[in-house]
């Protein structure tokens, strides 16, 4: 046990008593209450801000999720019939002069013939369509109808846009 009767302890007590002799306790009490009131206001406004922040965070997260989903969705290539179906397709241009409608008979069971718009572009010209997300169909077998309508099979490409 340490000796309590110590001259240093007495000196420290004397110093404190001297300073507190004329100390304004009322001022200290007011100061504490003022600080407590400020802390209370900050705490309550902090609570309001906290709820607002929560709402803002939920909105931000939701927006981010939706935006990310959209970006991912847009960055994916569109699913085409050709992506779904492996095999071959038969494209038949009924009458070129009548319009761009053709019948596409996609190989595979339970597949109905589909119609699509086609555009015949010049192989020597600018291929601006190459950056479009289209399914390319390569004509592997030349039908007679091309020749009948004066198309040169070697000089034309066929684009099917689904």
């Amino acid at each position, binding site marked *: 046990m*340490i000796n*309590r009767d110590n001259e*240093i*302890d007495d000196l420290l007590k004397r110093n404190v008593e001297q*300073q507190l002799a004329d100390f304004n306790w009322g001022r*200290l*009490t007011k100061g504490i209450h003022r*600080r*407590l009131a400020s802390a*209370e206001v900050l705490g309550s406004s902090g609570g309001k801000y906290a709820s607002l922040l929560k709402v803002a965070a939920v909105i931000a997260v939701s927006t981010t999720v939706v935006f990310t989903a959209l970006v991912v969705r847009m960055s994916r290539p569109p699913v085409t019939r050709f992506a779904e179906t492996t095999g071959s397709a038969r494209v038949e241009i009924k009458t070129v002069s009548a319009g761009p409608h053709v019948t596409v008979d996609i190989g595979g069971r339970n597949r109905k013939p589909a119609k699509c718009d086609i555009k015949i572009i010049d192989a020597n010209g600018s291929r601006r369509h190459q950056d479009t997300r289209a399914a390319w169909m390569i004509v592997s077998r030349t039908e007679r109808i091309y020749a009948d309508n004066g198309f040169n099979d070697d000089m034309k490409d066929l684009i099917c846009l689904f």
Partner: protein
Amino acid sequence: MKAQQLGQSDVVRLVRASQAGEKAAFDKLVRLYQRQAMRVALGILGEANDAAEAVQEGFVKAYLNIRQLKYPRRFRLWLLKIVTNAAVGQQRAARRRAEILKAVRSSRARREVLRPIDTEAVKDLKRAVQQAMVQLTEKEAKAITLFGLEDLGQDEVAEIMGCSAEAVRWHVYRARQKLKVWLKEYLQ
């Protein structure tokens, strides 16, 4: 209102009411313990205005964190711990300021001899104690204030400081040894 005028059960009731958000109850606790808090802060800092600042800071921290107090009957020690830490924090800041000043002075006058206490500049007990307390370690300042000045028990001081009773004894002893040298001209 003094703490002795209220029983332990009254204090516990006030603490529980404060934890439930009753500000009037905390105001009573402020009036109950502000004198003891002030004595402790003043013991560490040695200056009344600084001590009042630390006490205010301590009560605000106690108010904001009172729900975390598990044992209401230990409110007094818990509060004194907060106030002590606030005072030591201020002392630390004062020490940093003093070091900066010292560095500036030494750069201006390199021949100046640094002494633990500038006795020539000390005009009264207040300034002497203030300078001496700043030069104790934080643990020594806490221990001598709580044990020597405030007459708390060793176990209570140990709880406030978060150390063993043996460590408290050692810090008190070291503080007394240093203060006896630094304040010898004020000892009767």
